């Protein structure tokens, strides 16, 4: 998969960690689910969504 994050990658990662700050584990779990759904909607394209679902699953070892 291409690297699309570019120079903003550290800003993104730190914003993500900040979003989780102070949350319980259950709340973090919920936040992650909302994030996945929102990001899926941002991507939109079903073909690409299937590809990332497949890739994420394949990494399970």
């Amino acid at each position, binding site marked *: *998969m*291409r690297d*699309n994050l570019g120079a903003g990658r550290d800003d993104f990662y730190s914003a993500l*960690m900040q979003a*989780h700050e102070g949350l319980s584990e259950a709340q973090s779990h919920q936040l992650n689910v909302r994030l996945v759904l929102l990001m899926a909607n941002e991507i939109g394209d079903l073909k690409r969504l299937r590809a990332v679902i497949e890739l994420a699953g394949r990494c399970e*070892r």
Partner: protein
Amino acid sequence: MPAYQYEPFAYIRPPELDGGRSQAPIAIVGAGPVGLTLAIDLALRGIKCVVLDDNNVVSVGSRAICWAKRTLEIFDRLGVGERMLDAGVTWTVGRLFHGAEEVYSFDLLPEHGHKYPAFINLQQYLVEQYLVERCHDFPDLIDLRFLNKVVGHAETSTGVAVDVETPDGPYRLQAVYLVACDGANSPTRRRMGLDFVGQSFEEQFLIADIEMTQSPFGNSGVAERWFWFDPPFHAGKSALLHQQPNGIYRIDLQLSGNVDARLEATPEQVLPRIRAIVGDKPFRLDWVSVYRFRCAKLDRFVHGRVIFCGDSAHVVSPFGARGGNGGVQDADNLGWKLAALIQGIAGPGLLESYNAERGHGSAENILNSARATNFMTPKSPIEALFRSETLRLAHSQPFAQKLINSGRLSLPCSLEGHSLQTPGEAPLRPGSVVLDLPLADGSWLVEHVQGDFVLVGFGDIALPEVADLRRLGIDQAGPYPGFASTGDYAATRYGTGLAYLFRPDGHVAAVFAQPSADQVSAAMQRALGAVDCAVAA
């Protein structure tokens, strides 16, 4: 026997003890890398300084080892860059491990067309030794005073009075400006009661230097940098191994926040850990220390006639090597401005621009260092989970490899938008630092553009004559010195048919497509602080 022989510097009885008086306008507290850099910079401008240090040897322990390209370019201007490059180890390969497995490796070799590589490794004690030796080339301009401890200071109507203690008793030194390069625990800062705020990290790090004849990286003889998350020999923590000159290797090991630092630094604790990293190859422990890191900075670096520079103004965790490198850039930014003040050619905004520009640079360094430290020391189970899944994806996904943060290496900040720069559009934008180029006669652009104001024309453009401004042509003929470039570096880095006005510290002050003498002169006055910072902001 330690790898480095500390030769004490001579203490010389200061003239003030016998009724004499220093004529130097600048007093520098601290002969660390930053104070020494500033002293040489001022000397090259013909400005006298006194450097006061409470000690009489170079840095004890190697401390800083990674020196960035920009720092080496500054050292080049000061006449010590090539010596550092020759003595240092140039990195080539970086490897990142997660557990026992290599996640990926990457090429650390620099982009072509630069005199200096992205980074070298060289022990801080050697860097300081070379700087002290360079200071000795200016006996009439640099008054280096070892075993001179600054214990007080007060502003006077004409400058600063500095109270100093020596083995022969106390004296008072008069100067126009006092520059505090007295390190992370800056006594000057404490004396003034200035807040030093930021983030402290819980985890402690064990830093060890070992001497080995066989390379722990294998037999290739190549200098590598190995970084582990959760290594088999140090479960749940991180570890770093890299090479210094003279068969010395640096090991950084993350420890828990609650361990006893003194116990961790004992050979009984340290040796088994190192053996786990280097295997059964013989080694000798040269230096070991345990640190707890923090990121903090002063709100302002300029307080009347007292100026803070280097670690006294800002500290960072060492991941990304921004402490010493950032401090040398402070000195590079400050030297020409102090000289302009002493020479009476500075505008009202010049000293304040040091405060603004280096405040910005150090904030950027702190942001990057804090993020790397956060990545290395997850604060919660969810942070640890994100990190371990990033590492898992990194085996196959380039984007995830780049998210892994074991330190973003020190790069100079851009000063775009600050008051000294004239806004404009160009391949290398105003505020950026000089980008090096190889020239046809075997020299490099960085050897020609740093030190004073210079107007450089690239390609087909005529440079006007402006008082007190040097001119230089690249790939053009004019009534001023010129060079041909090689390859297409000049065209891609600077474009063609453009004139760049460089500040003495190598930052671009302005760019012109059709420069008139008036425009260039105005941009130069602006870069000398003609525009008040407070008004421009």
